[in-house]
């Protein structure tokens, strides 16, 4: 695709000129100008074809013509290529008068085109006191008495202070009747100076006795960096030129011999004085005319958030090398270098601008942080004294930090937007009411039903067991029944011994079968022994029963309360010891 495009472009360039007739135009403007001014002859060829070099334009005396170059333009619109060639010439009248310029004949593609004639009027230069004398034309200007090129250099002022601005001006004068086709400027050496370029001075014309010169001026701003007698070496220009000669058959008549020169200026001496001593506090070497101010990028600060503190120095002087004030350390605040920026302002005589020094402050704590004042001074050579300035201190109110978003800093009314209203009524309660589980009743409330349930369950189970095993139930109940019976015997007044016998017999019946009740005491002994009861306990229980029988049936036998209590105790003890012979 690219190849195809290139091929198409090549064909168009190759055959384009043959596709149609070229259009040729030539204009000369302005036709009314001052001596030394420039009228521009513009030749434009549209549609292809080139201008032949053998132009013929016999010019009258007093005019200088130089080529200003040629440009070509190619374009493609809707797939169609077009080409235009533009050539420009500068026509300069060297003296006052009216010039009749003949018809200009241009040859393009072998065909002649004619333009003109023109009438050119050259007026005297307003600043010049008198027109140039006749005969001071270019043909004579190349003579040895009038130099073709000159270089001049001046420094202003030649006496100054360290850091004060001086202007170095280098002027290159080129006689109007020569054509310079190569010029190389060799700048002077300015050791001991800080150098800044100044904007270029527009070209001018200057008349000197015997010739008119075109002037090109270069200006530099110099700032001496040390005191003493400093020398600026000569400025040089290595130039090649050709003198104009009247030759109507040559190319615009510029067919003179080539010359080469290297004119040089005289050196300049500058006397640099040191700055007066002592310098005031805050002086960092600034010389010029300055003003200083400081600012913060925000009015409200917050803990942990950076604040930009900018000190701005504005004025005329060497702002590039300007040093700012010394930022102080601030308690409770971290300080970081925020860099500096420079906006240069300059005209053809003064260098200046605005330089900003930024300090980033990060408050470490909330509260009021005091920003101290800053002293800064500069030396004003125009006034011949130091000028001290002071940036006033201020209090910086730092609010507590926020996390994810700013909240505490928001005005309350903004935070309160959309807030639901307060409750007008409530039922207040104590803290314990919020923790019912910590109240003893709560534990009881949970445990009681569960315990009751467990108890009921156990009771039901016991009943069920008793229902299925009545003998076992009686055996399990026997000790309790015996204990109750013996307790009753203790308080019984009527037949306590009989109660004792019934209680013990009930126990033995429950434990060892109902047949116990019909046995004699001897038979009881044998039965219990047969049941495997402990012998000693068996003997003891039988002995108690026999003792009780004696008390019941032999009223004559005396028995005390102590005997009864001993019998009750022994019965209870012996009954429990009979366990070995229980029935399964």
């Amino acid at each position, binding site marked *: 695709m690219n190849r195809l495009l290139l091929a198409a472009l090549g064909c168009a360039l190759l055959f384009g000129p043959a596709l149609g007739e070229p259009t040729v135009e030539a204009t000369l403007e302005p036709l009314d100008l001052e001596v030394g001014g420039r009228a521009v002859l513009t030749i434009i060829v549209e549609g292809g074809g080139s201008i032949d070099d053998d132009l013929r334009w016999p010019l009258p005396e007093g005019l200088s013509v130089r080529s200003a170059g040629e440009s070509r333009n190619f374009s493609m619109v809707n797939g169609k290529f077009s080409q235009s060639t533009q050539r420009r010439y500068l026509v300069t009248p060297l003296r006052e008068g009216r010039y009749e310029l003949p018809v200009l004949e241009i040859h393009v593609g072998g065909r002649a085109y004619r333009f003109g004639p023109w009438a050119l009027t050259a007026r005297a230069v307003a600043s010049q006191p008198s027109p140039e004398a006749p005969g001071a034309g270019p043909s004579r200007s190349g003579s040895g008495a009038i130099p073709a090129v000159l270089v001049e250099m001046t420094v202003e002022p030649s006496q100054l202070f360290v850091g004060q601005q001086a202007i170095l001006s280098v002027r290159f004068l080129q006689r109007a009747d020569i054509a310079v086709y190569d010029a190389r400027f060799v700048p002077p050496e300015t050791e001991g100076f800080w150098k800044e370029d100044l904007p270029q001075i527009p070209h001018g014309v200057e008349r000197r006795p015997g010739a008119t010169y075109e002037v090109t001026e270069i200006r530099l701003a110099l700032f001496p960096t040390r005191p003493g007698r400093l020398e600026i070496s000569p400025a040089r220009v290595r130039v090649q030129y050709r003198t104009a000669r009247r030759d109507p058959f040559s190319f615009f008549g510029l067919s003179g011999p080539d010359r080469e020169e290297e004119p040089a200026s005289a050196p300049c001496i500058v006397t640099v004085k040191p700055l007066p001593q002592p310098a005031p506090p805050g002086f960092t070497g600034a010389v010029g005319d300055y003003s200083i101010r400081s600012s913060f990028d925000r009015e409200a600060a917050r803990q942990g958030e950076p604040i930009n503190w900018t000190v701005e120095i504005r004025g005329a002087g060497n702002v590039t090398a300007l040093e700012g004030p010394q930022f102080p350390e601030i308690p409770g605040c971290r300080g970081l270098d925020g860099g500096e920026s420079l906006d240069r302002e300059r005209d053809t005589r003064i260098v200046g601008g605005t330089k900003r020094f930024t300090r980033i402050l990060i408050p470490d704590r909330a509260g009021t942080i005091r920003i101290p004042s800053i002293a800064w001074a500069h030396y004003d050579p125009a006034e011949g004294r130091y000028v001290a300035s002071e940036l006033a201190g201020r209090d910086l109110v730092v609010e507590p930090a926020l996390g*994810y*978003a700013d909240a505490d800093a928001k005005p309350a009314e903004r*935070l*309160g937007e959309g807030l639901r209203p*307060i409750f007008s*009524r*409530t039922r207040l309660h104590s*803290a314990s009411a919020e923790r019912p589980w910590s109240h003893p009743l709560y534990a009881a409330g949970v445990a009681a039903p*569960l315990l009751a*349930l467990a108890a009921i369950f156990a009771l039901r189970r016991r009943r069920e067991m008793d229902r299925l095993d009545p003998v076992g139930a009686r055996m399990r109940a026997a000790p309790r029944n015996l204990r109750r019976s013996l307790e009753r015997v203790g308080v019984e007044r009527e037949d306590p011994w009989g109660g004792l016998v019934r209680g013990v017999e009930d126990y033995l019946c429950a434990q060892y079968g109902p047949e116990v009740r019909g046995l004699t005491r001897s038979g009881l002994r044998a039965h219990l022994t047969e049941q495997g009861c402990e012998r000693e306990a068996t003997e003891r229980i039988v002995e108690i029963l026999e003792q009780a029988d004696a008390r019941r049936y032999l009223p004559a036998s005396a028995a005390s309360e102590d005997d009864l209590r001993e019998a009750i105790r022994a019965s209870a003890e012996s009954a429990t010891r009979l366990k070995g012979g229980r029935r399964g």
Partner: protein
Amino acid sequence: MARRFLVSALAVLTLLGSRAARASTPADDAFEEGNRLYNELRYAEALDSYRKVLAAGKRSAELFHNMGNAALQSGHAGWAVYYFEQARRRSPRNPDIGANLALTRRALLGSDPEPSRASILHWSARWVDTLTPARAAMTVLALVWLAVAAILCRWMVPPLEGRRRLLGIGAVAALALAGLLAGMKLAQQSLAPEAMVVQAGAARSEPSDDATVEFRLPAGSPVDLGREDGKWREVQVSESLRGWMEESAIAEFAAPR
């Protein structure tokens, strides 16, 4: 005669009971005073008055909600979140409290994130979250009683197979639900943050003003508490974020102030 006496006695008791119910306490008066001051836009004074209610040992969700409003209007957003959270814990389903809490959280934190710790048990946790601890405790109690009653009924009703089985299932379900609810609420309580940062500040590596600042916590940040050392309290945001903050910048949920 006896009937007349009985009626008279009942009337007197009713009158005394109604008077006792209407009698206002100093805490009630302080609450009313706080509301009055709030409506007069004297928010800081209203907050002080509400705090008197707390000092009297009384509290309620509405009280904390009003305290949150007063704190927010007086410019203490950190305290406002704390009070709204206290109110939400006491009345989780109140839309006004939820709205104000969300509003303040958005203002403070830029968003109103649902705490991840509260959604561990997903939807059931959400349901449990809507119950206050007191209500959960009473629900557990009621479920226990219900289960016991069902078991008793099962024992006492005629031995019809269908009813007994239904009562048995009901009793087991009630007991299981009671246990589950109690367990989840306990777990939720143990996972809930213990305190909140009410004033943004730095957490330091040691309990000292000269110690290194480990991290900074904004107001409204929930934290768990650790050791105490003078005016310092150890706070923990996560396993890796531990530090010491001044106790005045922290408010415990268990001991509202």
